[in-house]
């Protein structure tokens, strides 16, 4: 198997030419657009225009003030459990197909997901016991 792949993948330097072309196109596009907007666009420099965030509400304070670590924790936990759900989608789609192969294949599939969910559930219990979601 590996040997067959090997024959197919021996490559001379000129085989990498498309990569260089791609690189040039990418750099030219980035540079080109930056230059083009610089020349094409109108230049208006009012205070409102130079605000980093403009939606009608007055800006007050600095963006770099420290705020509670709880926000970060909730955000990271959200990502974690969100990914868990994402994993479940392809599993659920394939479950029926696997079940049609036979009971054993379906059962295997089920056990594997149960182990995964069990590990995540342990993490969830840990998070709750640790008091991460207590908000006061």
């Amino acid at each position: 198997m590996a040997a067959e792949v090997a024959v197919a993948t021996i490559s001379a330097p000129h085989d990498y030419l498309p990569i260089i072309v791609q690189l040039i196109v990418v750099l030219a596009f980035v540079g080109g657009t930056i230059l083009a907007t610089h020349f094409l666009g109108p230049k208006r420099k009012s205070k409102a225009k130079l605000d980093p965030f403009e939606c009608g509400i007055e800006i007050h304070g600095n963006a770099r003030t420290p705020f509670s670590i709880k926000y970060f924790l909730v955000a990271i936990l959200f990502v974690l459990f969100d990914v868990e759900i994402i994993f479940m989608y392809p599993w659920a789609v394939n479950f029926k197909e696997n079940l049609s192969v036979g009971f054993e294949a379906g059962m295997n599939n089920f056990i594997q997901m149960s182990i995964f969910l069990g590990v995540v559930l342990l993490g969830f219990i840990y998070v709750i016991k640790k008091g991460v979601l207590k908000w006061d």
Partner: protein
Amino acid sequence: MNILILVSVLGVISLFAGLSESLRQHTRTIIVAGLIAITGLTMFTWNAKQFFPEMLNFDKYAAVFTTVILVISTLIFVLSKDQFNHDEIHKGDYYGIMLFTVAGAIMMVSFSNLTMLFLGIETLSVSLYTLAGSRKDLLKSSEAAFKYFLLGAFATGFLLFGIAFIYGATGTFSVSGISDYVHNTPQLPAIFYGGVILIMIGLLFKVSAAPFHFWAPDVYEGSPNIITSFMATAVKVTAFAAFYRLFSGAFVDVNEKWDNALIIAIALTLLIGNFTALAQTGLKRLLAYSGIANAGYMLLAVLALKNDASNALLYYSISYAAASLGAFAVLISVSDDEKTFEISSLKGMSKSNPLQAVLFTIIMLSMAGIPPMAGFFGKYMVLSAAIKEGYLAISLLAILTSLVGIYYYFKVIAAVYSAPDTEVQTENKANIVVFICAGISLVIGAYPDLILNLF
């Protein structure tokens, strides 16, 4: 595989034990008992039924190194009494993360697929970044974690890039698949060699070999003592075992293509490690540079892998880990994490604690490579393996630099036996870990066959 699962479960148990106030006091005891049981299981079940052998192959090599790692970790947990008292609530978490590090280490010594190698390295490293910063009240601990994380992530990039190159050339992640490819392809593409060198850079960083050693002294210095001892022993042995396993498994047939790069790295490591250690006044920094220098000797075993130097590597790993762990155990018994411990502060130990002074001397002699101790035979075996493969010049350099090493190890011994600046009280007790480490250094030095017959 079973061992990996058991260690991970032990880590989860430790996390949960840390939640309850009453169990928290016993977490360490539970872990030590669990690790001893798992170590026993490793020794007796290494050829049991394998799951996913194309991912993790728990062969004899893996079993032996797993045993070494588990024994070192057990000793470190024994040593970690009172080490996390500053942060009672998170005690279970620290222990848990340490166990996850061990789980990563087990993956690193038993992988048979590059993805598992990468996963193992990441499990190990990410846990270590956290542990390096576990003294949140100390600025230098955070600094160590930050430096370690930034540089480590960068090195991981190199490793991944290398793995991608290898995959691009061979079309497989499996170590045996790569080996087959190398064997059956008359003209290897340049991209393959590029991948080998990039992987080598990533691994040289993890073993703290020059010129990728810059993180080691600062991270060792800033991390809590117990974590530094963990990094200097278990993690270093693991990184070498993984390095050797990958290069002897996949790249052994093209070793004339990468050995020059490795020789340069070894020469730099030996010179920088030994000569910079001369100038150190802090004991922890001295041990960090000694760790770098020792990485050079262990790399000689990797260099000589064509003729199976795994015995030499194993023996050197054990002798180095025993000596290093013993030295850190002494450091932990005489200092805390908060301030730098100078070598001159050791003065008077022979008066205040004669037993520990004698054991510390044995450990330092082993590190320096003085004959009856294990360190000498480790160096001897590594050097003879390298010379047998014809790497004469680098072996000569290794011998010469080890003479330099003797000077700074004796500086420590001299401090132990010189007169104290102030009157000290006599207490004749040594930490049990110091005892065990000095014992290992003596016993396997006297009977090297104990280790050599393992393979």
